[in-house]
């Protein structure tokens, strides 16, 4: 096995990991702020892929799909928070989880009714078809684009959270919503926006993943499990954790796929089990939370 193949596989792993990072990030931000684990996250990822596909065919351009799908699905997420999840704050921690689980049933079946049960191919945008010479080998342009876009989104997100007033409110709200209320911040609006952001990130992950895997109503199930694994490894609520764990899992999967393909779907769970045995709160999780 030569080195260039391994390096190429490493890049594939990073592209795979980039989608995982974006998706898991949505999950972990919502948990960090609202204390809610969104079991419909996988279903919303799938909705994002369908929305992207639909909008792209409607406007004739992948780019409109990529831009509008996360916004629309994010708005839909805000509706979910406003109408359903909001009623459950203050109740048992399991209740929002069960609610979103029921919701995922409705969403998946709804998509089956509208688009049918069969998978639909998601065409790669024409500008990104083909490969780039990286010096060690040829790499699909689209995957390189995914890595770059995710990096841009991550930097933008980090700057917003760390350098702006809004980010300050969000970080403070995650630490102590009660004090924020006392200081006159309408924390309900912040939660609404954060839930929308989390869902929007899931949808963005869905659109980006579209051309890399086939789009079908069940695609969210595996993604949900993957996002869980990533957030558990990284530490629930930790943004840095989600980024590092996402890349770690992506690289791990594609490396194992190279040497032992039949183990590829299993390795991330083994990785999670190993991390949990050593650090139950995840690599970057705060202690008391796990």
């Amino acid at each position, binding site marked *: 096995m030569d080195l260039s193949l391994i390096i190429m596989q490493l890049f594939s792993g990073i592209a795979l990991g980039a989608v995982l990072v974006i998706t898991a990030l949505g999950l972990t931000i919502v948990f960090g702020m609202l204390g809610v684990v969104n079991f419909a996250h996988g279903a919303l990822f799938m909705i994002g892929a369908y929305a992207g596909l639909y909008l792209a065919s409607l406007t004739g351009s992948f780019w409109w799909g990529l831009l509008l799908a996360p916004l629309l699905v994010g708005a839909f997420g805000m509706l979910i928070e406003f109408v359903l999840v909001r009623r459950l704050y203050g109740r048992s921690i399991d209740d929002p989880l069960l609610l979103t689980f029921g919701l995922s049933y409705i969403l998946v079946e709804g998509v089956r009714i509208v688009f049918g049960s069969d998978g639909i191919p998601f065409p790669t945008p024409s500008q990104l078809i083909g490969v780039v010479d990286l010096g060690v080998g040829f790499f699909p342009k689209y995957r390189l684009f995914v890595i770059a876009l995710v990096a841009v989104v991550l930097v933008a997100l980090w700057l917003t959270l760390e350098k702006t007033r809004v980010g300050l409110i969000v970080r403070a709200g995650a630490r102590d919503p009660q004090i924020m209320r006392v200081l006159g911040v309408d924390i309900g609006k912040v939660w609404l926006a954060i839930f929308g952001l989390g869902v929007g990130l899931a949808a963005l992950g869905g659109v980006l993943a579209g051309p890399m895997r086939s789009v079908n109503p069940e695609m969210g199930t595996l993604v949900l499990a993957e996002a869980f694994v990533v957030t*558990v490894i990284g530490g629930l609520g930790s943004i840095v954790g989600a980024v590092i764990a996402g890349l770690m899992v992506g690289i791990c999967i594609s490396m194992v796929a190279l040497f032992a393909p039949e183990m590829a779907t*299993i390795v991330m769970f083994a990785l999670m089990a190993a991390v949990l045995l050593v650090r139950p709160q995840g690599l970057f999780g705060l202690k008391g939370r796990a």
Partner: protein
Amino acid sequence: MTVQSTGEAPPLPQAQRLFAVLADHRVLVSIAALALLPWLLPSKALAVNVLIYGVVVMGYNLLFGYTGLLSFGHAAFFGTGAYLTGIAIGRWGLPWFAAVPLAIAASTALGAAIGTISTRTRGIYFSMVTLALAQLVYYVALQASSFTGGENGLRGFTVDHINLLGVQVNFLDPLNKYYVLMAFAALAIWVQSRILNSPFGAVIEAIRENEQRARACGYDVERCKLIVFMLSGAISAIGGCMSALHLSIVPLDILHYQTSGMIVMMVLLGGARSFFGPFIGAATFLILEDVVSLWTPHWQIVVGAIFVVFVLFLPKGIWGTLLDVLPWARERR
């Protein structure tokens, strides 16, 4: 429910006495109700499914309802019970009465493994970790196709008759089959009731109510969680064995995340924390599926919506809400 009411009870009115009798003789009441089930439901197949899922959900309720641990991976035990039964009969040529204990033992061992990892975590983490580990079991079964039949499911073992103490029972007759499987269910119900009535049953409820306080009382909370995880897996595995004997195939879907979700839905519909809830929930879910799928193939959207309504407005499920609403039923659970 597990704690016998103490002190001098006031004289019971008629209706209250009925609920008290139900609660006191819950094993016999459950078995009697199940014995009537094939005659109450439209088809024998539906009755068998209620029986099987009732046992699976009952085992799950030990973990979710009584200990307060929301697992999203119980399909792993249901499936392992079924697969091991099938493999032991079909590949190793064991008789059913050896295959079933073997399958239950294997599922308990799996419960020990998954439980060791997952009970290290708390709250929402626990749900995510159990889901992920159950997916691991699913993919292992998918990949080990030479052993499990992979995507096609496990086939090639048919139990057509069962030898009960010298009496040959024709297992192809639906009613015979139902009552043989009901014996398994009766055993599971008795075991469940014994666990709940034991001091251990009181400890797991104490953990659900207040983990810190249970720990302060000197109970080894982690060990209790692990034990209840294994017991819960073992009881659910009995349902798996029943499913394998009933269907003569084990579909791969039995291990799927959807199955775990269905178990969660059933327990919530019927009423977690109650003894009769799991069977009521399983019956409600399966009848609903049966009825709704008559007029639309998309029955899941209806079931999902009903489930959401239950989470929002009836979180105690059918039986739990009934006990709450009827003032004279409140005293005893």
